[in-house]
């Protein structure tokens, strides 16, 4: 590979650990010095982004299917785990999404610290989260992946529990216990994988090769693979979240402070979909074929259930949270087809959902700040009092319901189309049924989003807010939001920008399933 030598050696490590270094630095700065904390946090996240951008500029897009900037150093030898990192066309878009969201969240926080304030602790938690999220996307060793995957738990637990809404303590512990339960089973799966392959490595690529080889030789029974996949399925399925493991999500999203909801929706959920593609499908393709119809089934249940849940909500933030269940259902449907088309759609859908739902939570946060409520029936007439905020909400709602020309479209429609023609070996009729159900889901999505939009922005301002001063979008909000709004539009009219990056890696993976089916 002809990547820059310095970036290959240090780029990923610096990108991942610079935020952590910033967090350590902030621990030494006194709490009262709020301005310094904000600047250090922003600089740390921007520094991390700078390395990320440098690597993206240096990335060899012709070989986007291969791992680049590979680091492979010894780590905990006794358990055969190595410090192995790399970035390919699958990881790159998600890394880019993370690198974008975190600085924007910090900028948004500038004037919007949730109670009980304490910017020092709040920003430290965001930076630790940042390290955990980036590390998960670039780790190529299962144990390293697991450590990063778990690192995000603690900061998010504290963020919801300390800075969250009324029910914050309940929501935070529910989030924590749920995800930890999945992780424990996932870890058992990883260890079992380690021993049945006898490869004495946790390297994802080596394990995948070993499993393929031994499975072809008949050394590893398919039933064993299916069981191990099951452990990962629960671990990642809770994170995504898939129906019926989704119940932590509405509570966590609703109770989290705005910044927490944005990070949760934009990035944390993607750890689950990424894990599905990279780890579960990548290492155990044969088991994935067995599981695919069930994943597809749960995905479409999630789409319909999430949409119906949305229609029943009276709280704007809770509605957006339920819409995540539905949208992640589309992503999982794309994955379950096991075709390059579906997988590309899944990655695109992940990124688009990150941008759009992240943005929706930003708007919800700002609405809450102005009205001190998110009860849909008390809002209304937003376009009169705050036209800019109202139009932004309209734009993002349209993107979320999958309007062509905006980013949401390219995640949903290809996923639905892919279900028409799943990978060979998968039951076609079943998937075509899923396709129809998912298509109904898009109609429901249009229903609940337009209804939300109508109730909150049309009509006249409710009497109780007649005389309340409701300022329109502020400068910090513009700075934090504009990049997201622009990207939603750019990816909507020029999706090739993203597809060209993900396609080589996803085609390679799709070929594996095509070969398996024959």
């Amino acid at each position, binding site marked *: 590979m002809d990547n820059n030598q310095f970036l290959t050696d240090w780029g990923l490590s610096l990108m991942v650990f610079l935020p952590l270094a910033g967090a350590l630095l902030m621990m030494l700065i006194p709490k009262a010095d709020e301005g310094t904390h904000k600047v250090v946090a922003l600089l740390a996240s921007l520094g991390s982004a700078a390395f990320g951008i440098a690597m993206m500029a240096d990335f060899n897009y012709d070989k986007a299917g291969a791992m680049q900037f590979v680091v492979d150093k010894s780590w905990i030898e006794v*358990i055969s785990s190595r410090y192995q990192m790399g970035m390919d066309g699958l990881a790159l878009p998600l890394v880019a999404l993370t690198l974008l969201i975190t600085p924007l969240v910090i900028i948004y926080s500038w004037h919007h610290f949730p109670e009980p304030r304490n910017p020092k602790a709040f920003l430290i938690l965001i930076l630790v989260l940042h390290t955990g999220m980036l590390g998960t996307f670039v780790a190529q060793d299962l144990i390293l992946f697991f450590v990063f995957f778990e690192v995000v738990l603690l900061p998010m637990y504290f963020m919801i529990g300390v800075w969250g809404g009324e029910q914050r303590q309940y929501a935070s512990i529910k989030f924590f216990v749920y995800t930890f339960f999945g992780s424990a*089973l996932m870890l058992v799966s990883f260890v079992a994988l380690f021993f049945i392959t006898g490869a004495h490595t946790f390297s994802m690529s080596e394990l995948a090769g070993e499993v393929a080889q031994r499975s072809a030789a008949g050394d590893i029974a398919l039933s064993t693979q299916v069981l191990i996949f099951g452990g990962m399925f629960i671990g990642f399925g809770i994170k995504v979240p898939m129906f019926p493991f989704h119940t932590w999500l509405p509570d966590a999203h609703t109770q989290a402070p705005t910044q927490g909801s944005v990070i949760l929706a934009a990035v944390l959920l993607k750890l689950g979909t990424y894990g599905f593609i990279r780890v579960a499908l990548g290492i155990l393709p044969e088991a994935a074929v067995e599981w695919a119809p069930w994943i597809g089934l749960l995905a479409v249940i999630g789409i319909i259930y999430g949409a119906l849940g949305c229609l029943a909500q009276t709280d704007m933030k809770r509605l957006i949270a339920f819409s995540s269940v539905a949208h992640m259902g589309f992503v999982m449907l794309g994955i379950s087809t096991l075709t390059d088309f579906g997988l590309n759609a899944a990655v695109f859908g992940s990124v688009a959902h990150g941008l759009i739902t992240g943005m929706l939570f930003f708007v919800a946060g700002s609405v809450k700040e102005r009205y001190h409520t998110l009860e849909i029936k008390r809002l209304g007439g937003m376009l009169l009092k705050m036209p800019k905020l109202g139009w932004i909400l309209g734009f993002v709602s349209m993107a979320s319901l999958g309007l062509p020309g905006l980013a949401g479209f390219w995640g949903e429609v290809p996923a639905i189309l892919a279900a028409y023609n799943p990978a060979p070996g998968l039951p076609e009729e079943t998937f075509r049924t899923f396709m129809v159900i998912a298509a109904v889901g898009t109609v429901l999505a249009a229903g609940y989003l337009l209804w939300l939009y109508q109730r909150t922005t049309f009509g006249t301002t409710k009497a109780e807010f007649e005389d309340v001063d409701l300022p329109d979008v502020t400068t910090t909000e513009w700075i934090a939001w504009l990049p997201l709004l622009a990207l939603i539009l750019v990816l909507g009219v020029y999706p090739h920008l993203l597809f060209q990056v993900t396609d080589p890696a996803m085609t390679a993976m799709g070929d594996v399933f095509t070969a398996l089916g024959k």
Partner: protein
Amino acid sequence: MLAALLQQGTPFLRPEVDFHAFAPEIVLVGALVAVLLVDLFTPESSRGIVPQVAGIGLLASIVPVLTLALDGTDRSMFGGAYAVDNFSLVLKALFLVAGYIVVLLSTNYIAEGDYHEGEYYFLLLSSVLGMTLMASSRDLISIFVALELLSIPAYMLAGWRKRDPKGNEAGVKYYLMGVFASAIMLYGMSLLYGLSGSTLLTDIGAAVSGPETSPALTLGVLFVLIGFAFKVSAVPFHTWAPDTYEGAPTPIAAFLAVSSKAAGFVALLQLALVAFPGRDDVVGPFIWVLAVLTMTVGNLIALRQTNIVRLLAYSGIAQAGYMLAPLAVMGTNADGALRAIVTYLLIYAATNLGAFAVVLAVARKTRSAEISTWGGLFEYAPGLTVLMSVFVFSLAGIPPLGGWLAKFVIFRSLVQPDLTVGGVSLAIIVGINSVVALYYYANIAREMWMKPVPDGDRTAVRVPFSIGAALAMTVVVTLVFGVSNLATRFGDLASFLPT
């Protein structure tokens, strides 16, 4: 007539004594004599020097441990009854460092509590001495002597707060249960000796691994295991632990929870892996049941605790269950079990001592160990809050804190190498228990971070230097063990089985 009798026997030969091998214990004996003398000859006003003498004595004993480790030869004395190898050295170092941290924790507590300082440190060092001996004992008699040497001072230390009825309860309960367990164990040992004709563990191992089982032999094995199950507070032999921890001085609760428990595991490891490897048909299922009961009951009762020390006691019981688990699969994976348990002991020691250090520091202000008094700690003691969060989440096994690696090596030893039903089912039970445990650990964090200050008193907590030092050491170790291969390295070194 006596002379005639003596002449009949073989002449007494002075056994070879390798003084280098004994050097850590000799230094420690010197230190405890020094503690007594200093206490005797210094005026009441300058007794503050006593804990320093004890601490320096413990640190000085580590020096010969290091020279022995650098020397690297395995030494064996008294016909194999006493061995100095990598296993014993790693654990001696653990006992000495843990003892040093307990001294640091005790310094202010004992001085301010108007307790007898000289006697306290003398007994503490005696108990540590028993532990270092335990690490080297490879014979029923030396194991028993070491056990009593470490236990009897601990009985007295547990009842140190003699003006408090709870302190008396702690001492008496611990003493009675301990003596009861010793009696059962001695009975088991006598059966083993009777059937094998030797007290050496290796000889017993050879004698019991024959194909014929006798009920007496099974009974002997089980009784000895039960004796140590008491020491490591395994369910159903755990009932003393919470009351004793609560009534004892807090530093002693830490000492019992960490050092004394580790000593019990050291003995269990030697017995299970040297004396009973041929009897894993008895030991395996027994430990399997014991481990499942211990972790499950410990965790479930911990959920209901309102007192932080009692909670740590029950969490320690659950942790003992995790540590027992690898022994259940020792028939197929003895080596892995040993490594996993030693690694776990090291990480558990650092984390738990740290947690007790925070409890001590906070109790200096709140004068209570009720968890409800910890409300809003984050507002007036953010440093202690972060440290306690690190410790409890390490105990819960959240990466990248040390505890996750401990859990991981347990998982690994249970699943390895050929996915036995007993091993994998145990691994899943450990996993589910970890989730239950997370709930009460997170509860502590919730109290500190998310609840209001109960009495509105936000004066800062003054952390004395010695507790601060203990906190710094334990938190560094907890973090470093989590992200490096240090702990597993030690676990690997400690492997005394022929590979």
